[in-house]
């Protein structure tokens, strides 16, 4: 097999690895929200222990990227594929960490959650999941337009976050006994807001991959 051919195979593998990592992270976020909404500590635990696999995969794939840079001295699109690959991996790994954060918060509220204050957290979570999915679709298809649209959703998430934050504070003022529980919901809202930022970063990476230019979309 020619050098170029085997390099192409490795670049294709890299894409597959990133998608594999992304699907683990998507699942992790999904499960963390399920743990919170169903108040299920077992599911939360699963998310926390599952994060090791995500971390391992991240280092494995990142090492691969470094090896490709050292051995292939990539140029042009090849270079951008690998550089954005590393950045997307980093973002995904952090997203996995936020899923763990949410799972931890879920364990803290389990069994004592008042029904009302979930507020718009489920809606925020759906939007975040949507953004992550669109970000990865944009990555797979090199779709700049989709990446842009996805990044635009970040503003909406921010708005819902601010609203939710206010509402939860008011709720705690009115129901001081709920504070030890609701304060974790504040954190969850914050983690979701950070997840949306990470998804936006992936959108920026996709735009760089395709156009060779960085656009700050946050």
């Amino acid at each position, binding site marked *: 097999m020619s*050098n*170029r051919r085997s*390099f192409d195979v490795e670049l294709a593998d890299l894409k597959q690895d990133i998608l594999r990592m992304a699907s683990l992270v998507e699942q992790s976020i999904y499960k963390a929200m399920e743990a919170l909404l169903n108040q299920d500590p077992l599911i939360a635990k699963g998310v926390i222990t599952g994060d090791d696999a995500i971390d391992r995969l991240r280092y494995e794939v990142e090492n691969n990227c470094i090896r490709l840079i050292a051995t292939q*001295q*990539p*140029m*042009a*699109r*090849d*270079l*951008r594929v690998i550089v954005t690959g590393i950045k997307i991996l980093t973002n995904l790994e952090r997203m996995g960490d936020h899923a763990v954060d949410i799972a931890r918060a879920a364990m803290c509220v389990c069994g004592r959650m008042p029904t009302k204050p979930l507020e718009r957290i489920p809606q925020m979570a759906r939007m975040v999941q949507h953004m992550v999915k669109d970000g990865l679709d944009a990555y797979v298809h090199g779709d700049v337009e989709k990446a842009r649209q996805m990044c635009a959703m970040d503003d909406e998430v921010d708005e819902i976050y601010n609203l939710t934050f206010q509402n939860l504070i008011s709720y705690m003022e009115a129901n001081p006994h709920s504070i030890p529980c609701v304060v974790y919901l504040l954190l969850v809202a914050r983690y979701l807001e950070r997840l949306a930022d990470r998804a936006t970063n992936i959108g920026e990476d996709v735009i760089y991959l395709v*156009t*060779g*230019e960085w656009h700050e979309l946050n």
Partner: protein
Amino acid sequence: MENKITIRNLNLYYGDLQALRDVNLDIQERQITALIGPSGCGKSTFLRVLNRMNDLIEGVRVEGRVLLDGEDIYGPDVDVVQLRKRVGMVFQRPNPFPMSVYDNVAYGPRIHGQKNKRRLDEIVEASLRAAALWDEVADRLFHSALGLSGGQQQRLCIARLLAVEPDVVLMDEPTSALDPISTLRIEELLQELKNNYAIVIVTHNMQQAARVSDVTAFFLNGEIVEAGETHKLFTKPRDQRTEDYITGRFG
């Protein structure tokens, strides 16, 4: 920035074969311009246009304009010997003359009329220093240049060229016959020389072009497909053909 050399609508024919097509390029002072492209695309031909070395080849016809500091080098009053002094060339294989190290470097100045022994000594030392060779040959200036290593010979050829105080240095694959260490020394040397000269280098080594040059021009079938800042050309080329070439997907 001032253009050192301005090339406009350049066509070149070897008899019936058109080797360069409508080439336009600006070569700037204190910059290294790299020429890349597949074998036979016209890089060496183009380089030879810049000091009229093609004049020595039977049946060559050149159209278009090549301005050195604004003056057409193909104009009727141009002194070609003087032109080649201003626009010097280093070749792929080091080609020292079969004489001493000293005489190799003094050769050009002597031809151009320098007879003063003291002055020649100064020129030889300064040129060898500028070519980063002085320390290695100071104690064998009067030994044959053919006894030097390949990398040393190539630096000697550069010293020989610098001795006649050119404005522009042309290099045709100057390191392709050298080992990696000698190659790095020449590349470091280029970075120093670029403070005083406009340098044009042909290289088949993409990493070398990316490492050393400020501007890169990609030639294909006698045309410039794309020319621009090196870092841009190697991270996001504008033309798909450039992309294919620099990523090794060509053909």
